[in-house]
């Protein structure tokens, strides 16, 4: 099963902005799509840093879960973010199923916090594994979004 294409979202090396809960009217379906995409991008960085091509497959309907499974292959400690990924998928579904629910802004905020946790976790794992900091590993993403002052060039490029 191939994952549906998600709306392209700018990568954020520092994670999604965590502010006060947004007003109900501001909870749009694109918010959850963007957050899911950012979570996938974090896992893509981990996989690419280990010289692999991120899968396009989905597991249980989510590419995020397939990416996690791929990322944990040969790195059992990466399973420490398994439930975080599953919670992101759960909140994505909640927001999709009950977009008008009074708790929707709260759920979106929780999804933001979960995605941020995943990004921080991947960042720490990259550093511990000697694969570089998240900001460096995510340089291609930032270059793509136009926010990388180096234009994606490395020092020795």
């Amino acid at each position, binding site marked *: 099963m191939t994952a549906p294409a998600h709306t392209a979202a700018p990568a954020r090396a520092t994670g999604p902005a*965590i502010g006060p*809960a947004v007003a109900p009217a501001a909870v749009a379906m694109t918010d959850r799509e963007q957050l899911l995409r950012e979570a996938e991008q974090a896992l893509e960085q981990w996989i690419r840093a280990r010289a692999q091509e991120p899968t396009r497959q989905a597991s249980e309907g989510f590419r995020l879960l397939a990416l996690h499974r791929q990322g944990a292959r040969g790195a*059992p400690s990466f*399973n*420490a*973010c*398994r*439930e*975080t990924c*599953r*919670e992101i998928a*759960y*909140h994505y579904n909640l927001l999709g199923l009950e977009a008008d629910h009074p708790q929707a802004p*709260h759920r979106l*905020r*929780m999804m933001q*916090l*979960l995605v*941020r*946790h995943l990004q*921080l*976790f991947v*960042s*720490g794992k990259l*550093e*511990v594994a000697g694969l570089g900091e998240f900001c460096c590993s995510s340089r291609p993403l930032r270059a793509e979004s136009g926010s990388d002052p180096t234009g994606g060039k490395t020092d020795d490029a």
Partner: protein
Amino acid sequence: MKQEYQRVAYYPGCALEGTGHAYDTSTRAVGNALGLQLDEVRDWNCCGAMEVKNVDPKVQTYLSSRVMSIAAHEMDAKVVMAPCNGCYHNLKKAEYDLAHDGESRQVVERISTKAGHATYRAGSLETIHALDWIKDGIGEDELKRRVKNSLAGLKVANYYGCMYTRPRHIFPEKDQGPGSESTSQPHFMDDLLAAAGAENVDFPLKTACCGGAHTLSDSDTSTKLVLNILRAAEAAGADVIATECPTCHSGLEMHQVRAEKVLGEKTTVRMLYFTQLLGIALGVSPRKLGVHENVSDGLALLKEKNLT
């Protein structure tokens, strides 16, 4: 109620003699209040923690096996209880390795013989966590009956950390249906605190990494991970984060302070060990539960909620 949990061998581990001293104090106090007996493992040693495991996993297996050997052979215990997630995890891992890996058995046999004590054999002892001990040694109904000071009105985010349920294969008793603990959605702490009257909030980061493993090598990442957990607990409406691991607990407390100092990010949610909260519900004084030893000002919260 499991009869074999009424009196168990107790393995506090190194952290409970240091930063987690209040966890040791409150675990013993709750056992006392509930009539559950603890016999501390004699001359216990380090479980191997992260440090030894990273250098030589087989030596870590031996270190944990020695603790189990003393409990099984010198104390004739059937059950050993470890409140620390790291110790609990390592004893369970040693049990698994000794049951499934011949090389581990050989190494443990060789070192045990050299050290002059009986070799631990897989299956001689049951390793449990403090949560299992109270949940299955007393149960929610009996706990409810003994509550003198209900935690009603206290909103709790239960934080289990990542070692209590991972890796799944070393916990064969979990995920066995009703009554057993879940590795993906652990609930034993939720169940016990609900029985004590607390209101558990939905907390999606209950098993998320707190960054404890790289708190020294990469403190900033640990601080950010902890800050995110604290923010999630506050966003969930929690007054307090209940913990069941000394490493997680001290990490949450210390990085809460560091987040404010270094990042200028203040959070107000408090941290208390689940044994401290249960002790309060059972009518034990905060001092006897070591609440004053916590970095996080749990006492102020308890006063605010009329629980002292």
